[in-house]
């Protein structure tokens, strides 16, 4: 027999004997967890030849009904964990090795860290409550939503989550869910709880937001957008004055409007939506009957 063939069979036999004699040192792909260390050379305690590791073998020591309540020797745990027990009960159709790694060699936490939702069968993966039951927040958003958890949350973490406002039934007000999100600054204070958030904010994020000041007063070259020129800090943005500038002294304004027969001249933007003094179009009359703000919006759309 040639030298190579002899070498092959001698090494083959030697290695096979070594593997049979001390499998822990010669073939196992990493040390067992400390709790399983006594099984180091007893491969068949967990492995079934050609079939791998079955849950049935694990359960010979770890009775399914007692996981989280008792240890593998049947002793009651000092701090029983009902949630752990429930988790295993609900997932009893799954193989232990889908989540628990062995031959990892180091920490028990390493085994737990191996759990991934991708390993779950489709049925259990869609039924989040099977494992996460009781974790659902009791707030208005979650109690009203008829959506599945997976519609907003991912399996990586609860947050960040995405929420499709389009899935809500119509008629709801933003403040029914976002009341606590409303800022307390001057800009928002006057909006109270029934503010029309959507006129400035979108449903994807609070910012960026758009605010159309032109709905109330359009700026021009004579009227730069400095809030404090017209609004008094601390009084809210719904209050304003046009008499702070040299061109709009109260006496002069009163006189000019009196000539036109207009007595109610203090609410300037009711008729003048911009710096154009002719914008009111001579529709004045006693009592300031220029029409309501809403009526004028259409007319001023030039």
């Amino acid at each position, binding site marked *: 027999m040639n*030298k*190579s*063939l002899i*070498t*092959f*069979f*001698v*090494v*083959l036999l030697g*290695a*096979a004997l*070594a*593997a049979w004699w001390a*499998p822990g*040192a*010669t*073939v*196992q*792909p*990493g*040390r067992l967890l400390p709790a399983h260390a006594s099984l180091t050379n007893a*491969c068949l305690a967990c*492995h079934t*030849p*050609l*079939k*791998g590791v079955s849950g049935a073998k694990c359960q010979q020591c770890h009775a399914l009904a007692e996981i989280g309540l008792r240890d593998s020797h049947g002793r009651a745990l000092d701090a029983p964990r009902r949630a752990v027990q429930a988790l295993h009960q609900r997932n009893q159709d799954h193989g232990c090795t889908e989540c628990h790694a062995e*031959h990892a*060699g180091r920490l028990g936490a390493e085994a737990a860290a191996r759990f991934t939702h991708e390993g779950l069968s489709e049925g259990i993966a869609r039924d989040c409550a099977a494992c996460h039951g009781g974790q659902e927040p009791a707030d208005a958003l979650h109690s009203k939503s008829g959506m599945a958890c997976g519609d907003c949350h991912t399996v990586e973490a609860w947050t960040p989550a995405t929420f499709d406002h389009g899935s809500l039934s119509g008629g709801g007000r933003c403040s029914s869910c976002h009341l606590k999100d409303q800022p307390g600054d001057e800009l928002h204070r006057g909006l109270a709880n029934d503010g029309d958030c959507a006129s400035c904010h979108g449903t994807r994020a609070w910012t960026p937001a758009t605010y159309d000041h032109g709905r109330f007063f359009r700026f021009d070259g004579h009227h730069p957008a400095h809030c404090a020129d017209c609004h008094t800090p601390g009084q809210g943005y719904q209050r304003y004055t046009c008499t702070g500038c040299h061109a709009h002294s109260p006496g002069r304004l009163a006189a000019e409007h009196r000539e036109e027969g207009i007595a109610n001249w203090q609410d300037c933007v009711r008729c003048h939506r911009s710096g154009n003094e002719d914008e009111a179009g001579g529709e004045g009359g006693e009592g300031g009957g220029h029409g309501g703000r809403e009526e004028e919006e259409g007319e001023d759309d030039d």
Partner: protein
Amino acid sequence: MKRYLTTTLLPSVLIFMGLLGAALVVDLLLHSVDLAWVGRWLGPVGVALLLLSFLHSLRRRKLIRLGSPKGLLQLHEVQGWVGALVLLVHGGIHLNAWIPWLALLAMVVVVASGLTGKVLLGEARKSLSTRRGELETLDLDPHEVERRLMGMALLTDTMKQWRSVHMPLTATFAALTLVHVAITLWLW
């Protein structure tokens, strides 16, 4: 001597060091992108590549008639290097068990042995070529030149001696790999 080092020895040393370096780089890359688990499945790929590289041995022993010996030798060299790289990544730097580690070590030794054979083959061919040139200057009959070159048996002897080392090393690697694969499949 310097020319011998740079044109003959250095390429083989670089090929060998390149194998170890490439294995480290690929392993590091896989770990850095959290794909270290891929290494586990590279075992069958590496074994398949090395098995395919044996086509050269089968052709040389006339057990198959597929392909040219020279082409299969080149394929043997490339597949041997790539297969070894894949298996080094598969093994990683984890001293978990002796048999797979010895198999890996044997494989690295076989690669080194193969590269040594490549150097020896090149040198022997060069010596033959030089000797042929010398004989041809003697105005000998071409058949006489061939007869005298055959008599040198330089190439044959060198490669025979090298093969007597390379093949048992390969057999050692094959036996250790077979035990590793068999136990992995048995205790899946």
